[in-house]
């Protein structure tokens, strides 16, 4: 073996790859998406393919008296029409509670529930066939308000007691208490000098991903099904699909298709079972693509919430107690409601030390649209309420709102109301300090107005009149990973081999890339751990073990961690090979620049030479440290894997006469532990902040008597570029020793505090209480709901 140690080579081998961790290589899907060339799940095509479509209920609550498919079956071009009775396996499915029928039977529980499915040779044929299905309904009074849900004796049950599959009872899906310190009693109340009470309402937000639900089921020769699908978690989809098809799991194989956004909205099944049922029945590939309107009925939304908070503090601003009740509307089926409740209850006090806590969070069954996972998952609603409380308290005590927060902020070593110690950095006060220290944007220049810079923008509603500036702050706390005893492990397979004389790593996981940049990070990890330049990413499928869900800010932590473990195992095996072959006794070996390198002796051998024709192919599972469920009565327990924090400062201009808002700037500071890809991290923070801005000022699914009133992007408004302000981001990297690379999940925390920060800024500009989001012009002008 000859070692070549030139100046140039030395540099090469000691410098980590720029596209390894800490670098910002571009994502492979970025340019394709911008140019419209990315292949989404809705773009798939197969010879002989049929189109599937579902008939949906126009009513929110009704008995199904009869379903007559005779005419639809006869319609030329129709290959199958299926109803509940045609389901070969189990009839119900669900993420946590299997309470949702794959097709409705007996009763309709929400507007848009699927009753029958059709497969036909053309979408238009399918549509016409659907129109020929005759459903007789008997309308039932809807159960939609909290009062109605909580009084089933009078208003009835969404799920009759005899068919009830939930954990709790009545119309309650799940409830969780958290009691700490002395709880909240009259004696505790007496300890406070100031008491702030508030009632808050959060409207129903939608994930509003741009790629509608879609996928293709292809029947296989072995009687199984291959499903190509845009989802967030391949394995949990399979777990729910296979029993309904009456197939063993290994006969249902899933491959990830191009995903156009998710944000929690693809955690539940949408068209998966329907496409598979139709493929199974017809023996042909079946494609289903939802229209935009159907998409609004085809996925769960963020739980709308009513929150009641009572906060007590001493005269000098120390929090004494908080009594809170959070009521989440879960809609017709359970979806992720139990876990959302757990989050709301355990995180609902915010990132503050509060000695005495009494919290109750519940999710209700109703005839409203089902609600489940959405970015921020139960922590968003509470953050709006507890941050409003902090501002009111600051005003009552005449303390600066940022100071008040800092005074009560948790830090490493603090005990959460659940009794869990925060055992890694929790720089809440520092994040607030940093976001406050950022320079403020300049005042509005009314002498050189560009209408695009002011509320209303091109709509030309103001030339400077009525505009008042406001500044608001907020901070939030979110958990990372699945909580309460769930072992949401991830699997990764890494293969190292020589291709074209060069060592190439292949990373194979079942991780759903939904736009978060996970595949880019996997490449970075493989480059860093294996010292290779080239990394290929295997398509995500169920041939490899579960990667868990792309949610809960967990994928870089969990599947990234699994890739790290697998790559380390491959490296160890490679080095063992080298030790065996060359008799090395260095204990300072690493893989850098395509070579085995000893820190003391320099480059030893190119990986390609060492590996030769063999390949190392290893699979590893990554489990986070175990957690436990919260105690039902007290909420005590080591329930969360990791905490994550983000603080925001919002600057807004409000046209106070017209009630129009322009967010001028939305600054954030977040601790990410370690930024594996700094560009992606900033992208996540800005994207999450923007979604929170949307909830603050415009995003809401309007539901009246169980009916969705705005299922379109004409009337469900999401921020455009003119609504999205400059967003300076200050990223802090304080390592969490429990996490791979010390990283902290990034995706959700910014979605929490941006909403209350924007609303706080609007409050400052207007002097109004604003206890509801989204804030509408009506609320700012006193002209209605």
């Amino acid at each position, binding site marked *: 073996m000859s070692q070549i140690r030139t100046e140039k080579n030395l540099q090469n081998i000691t410098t980590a790859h720029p596209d390894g961790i800490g670098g910002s290589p571009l994502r492979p899907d970025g340019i394709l998406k911008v140019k419209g060339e990315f292949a989404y799940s809705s773009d798939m095509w197969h010879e002989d393919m049929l189109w599937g479509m579902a008939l949906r209920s126009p009513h929110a609550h009704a008995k199904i008296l009869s379903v007559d498919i005779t005419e639809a079956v006869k319609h030329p071009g129709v290959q199958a029409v299926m109803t509940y009775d045609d389901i070969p396996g189990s009839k119900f499915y669900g993420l946590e509670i299997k309470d949702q029928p794959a097709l409705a039977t007996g009763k309709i529980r929400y507007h848009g529930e699927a009753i029958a499915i059709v497969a036909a040779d053309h979408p238009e044929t399918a*549509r016409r066939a659907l129109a020929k299905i005759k459903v007789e309904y008997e309308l039932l009074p809807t159960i939609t308000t909290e009062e109605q849900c909580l009084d089933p004796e009078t208003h009835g049950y969404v799920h009759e007691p005899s068919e009830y599959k939930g954990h709790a009872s009545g119309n309650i899906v799940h409830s969780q208490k958290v009691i700490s310190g002395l709880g909240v009693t009259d004696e505790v109340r007496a300890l406070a000098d100031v008491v702030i009470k508030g009632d808050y309402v959060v409207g129903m937000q939608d994930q509003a991903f741009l790629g509608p639900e879609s996928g293709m089921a292809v029947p296989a020769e072995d009687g199984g099904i291959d499903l190509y699908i845009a989802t967030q978690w391949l394995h949990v989809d399979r777990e729910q699909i296979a029993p309904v098809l009456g197939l063993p799991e290994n006969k249902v194989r899933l491959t990830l298709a191009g995903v156009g956004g998710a944000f929690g909205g693809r955690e539940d099944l949408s068209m998966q079972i329907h496409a598979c049922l139709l493929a199974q029945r017809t023996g042909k590939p079946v494609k289903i693509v939802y*229209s*935009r*309107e159907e998409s609004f009925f085809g996925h769960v939304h963020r739980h709308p919430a009513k929150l009641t908070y009572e906060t007590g503090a001493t005269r000098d601003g120390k929090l004494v107690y908080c009594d809170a009740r959070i009521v989440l509307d879960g809609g017709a089926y359970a979806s992720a409601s139990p876990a959302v409740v757990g989050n709301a209850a355990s995180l609902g006090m915010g990132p503050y030390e509060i000695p005495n806590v009494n919290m109750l969070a519940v999710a209700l069954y109703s005839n409203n649209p089902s609600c489940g996972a959405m970015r921020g998952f139960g922590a968003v609603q509470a953050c709006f309420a507890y941050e409003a409380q902090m501002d009111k308290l600051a005003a009552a005590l005449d303390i600066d709102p940022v100071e008040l927060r800092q005074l009560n902020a948790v830090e490493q070593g603090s005990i959460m109301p659940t009794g869990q110690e925060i055992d890694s950095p929790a720089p809440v006060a520092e994040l607030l300090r940093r976001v406050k220290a950022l320079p403020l944007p300049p005042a509005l220049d009314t002498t050189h107005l560009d209408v*695009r810079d002011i*509320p*209303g*923008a*091109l*709509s*030309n*509603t*103001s*030339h400077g*009149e*009525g505009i008042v500036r406001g500044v608001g702050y907020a901070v939030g706390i979110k958990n990372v990973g699945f909580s309460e005893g769930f072992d949401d492990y991830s699997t990764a397979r890494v293969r190292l081999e020589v291709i074209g004389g060069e060592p190439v790593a292949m990373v194979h996981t079942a991780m759903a890339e939904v736009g978060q940049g996970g595949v880019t990070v996997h490449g970075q990890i493989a480059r860093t751990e294996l010292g290779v330049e080239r990394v290929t990413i295997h398509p995500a499928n169920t041939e490899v073990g579960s990667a868990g869900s792309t949610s809960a800010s967990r994928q870089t932590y969990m599947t990234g961690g699994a890739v790290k473990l697998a790559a380390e195992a491959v490296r160890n095996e490679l080095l063992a090979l080298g030790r065996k072959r060359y008799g090395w006794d260095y204990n300072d070996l690493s893989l850098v620049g395509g070579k085995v390198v000893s820190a003391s002796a320099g480059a030893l051998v190119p990986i390609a030479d060492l590996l030769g024709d063999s390949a190392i192919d290893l699979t590893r599972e990554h489990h986070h440290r175990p957690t436990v469920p919260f105690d039902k009565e007290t909420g005590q327990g080591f329930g969360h894997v990791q905490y994550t924090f983000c603080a925001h400062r919002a600057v807004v201009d409000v046209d106070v*006469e*017209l*009630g*129009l808002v*322009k967010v001028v700037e939305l600054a954030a500071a977040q601790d990410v532990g370690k930024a594996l890809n700094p560009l992606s991290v900033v992208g996540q923070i800005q994207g999450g902040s923007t979604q929170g801005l949307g909830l603050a*000022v*415009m995003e809401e699914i*309007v539901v009246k008597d169980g009916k969705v*009133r*705005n299922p*379109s992007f*004409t*009337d469900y*408004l999401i*921020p*455009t*570029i*003119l*609504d999205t302000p400059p967003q300076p981001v200050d990223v802090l990297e304080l390592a969490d020793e429990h996490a791979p690379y010390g990283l902290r999940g990034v995706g959700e925390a910014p979605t929490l505090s941006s909403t209350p920060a924007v609303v706080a800024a609007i409050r400052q500009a207007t002097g109004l209480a604003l206890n509801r989001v989204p804030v*509408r*012009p*009506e609320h700012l*002008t006193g*002209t*209605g*709901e």
Partner: protein
Amino acid sequence: MEFLRPATWDEALAAKAEHPSALPISGGTDVMVELNFDRHRPSALLDLNRISELTAWESGRFEGQEGEVIRLGAAVPYARITRELSRELPGLALAGNTVGSPQIRNRGSVGGNLGGASPAGDAHPALLAAGRDVLVEAESVRGTRLIPIDEFYVGVKRNSLEPDELIRAVRIPVADGPQQFSKIGTRNAMVIAVCAFGIALHPKNGTVGTGIGSAAPTPRRAVEAEEFIAGELAERGLWESGALIGPAAIQRFGELVTAAASPIDDVRGTAAYRRHALAVMARRTLTWTWNEYTQSLRSAA
């Protein structure tokens, strides 16, 4: 669904006469949404995109209209109106600039807005304000009909076209005074109007034109407000003096604009908000146009 693609205007008229239920498609920014949402299943589409004269405009003098007139082809997209006609048709240019997004403004047209006759169409308030002698050129194989803009909107999303008629152009007098347009939406771009307001000062004949959008079953003008403010301007000699209108009259103008509307509560906004916002927009746009007018008086002097 049949797809008819006439190459000339005459062929288009013949096709429309033969297939009166055929749906014309110009920019397609309304039509394609309707089709995609499955709200409309016309038996045939009549594609007007091959007829180049529809995307042209000319200026000149026309019978029945005073002064210089822009004859705006039905399919001239908003982006071009804003770019090419902001001096001649400032109200319409401002209104066009609020429509949708750049992509929509590159395709959408005033002809399409009129064809749809939605109460939320942004061209309407500007056209109404531009004067009572704005004329819609409706044509069929039977001949040409010049429909005054005040008679064009007849119901919710209904206009006064006959089944065999197509819109060829709109004849709009060149502005003889300042014009403004304001629209409320709950976001800062790409939004259907919650309500909208257009205003035009016509110093030549001493009138003021107005148009209200999204606050009644059809676009409509605020007649009493127009007459009130024209009266004020005349009686107080303000056209000549260029003096301030004063808060009382501006306030009254806003109230009368609100009174002319009959808005409803819907997902986009409450009736109460619409009334409130119309008054604010009316006051502000009147102030802007009057300031501009007085400045032009001063610089002319």
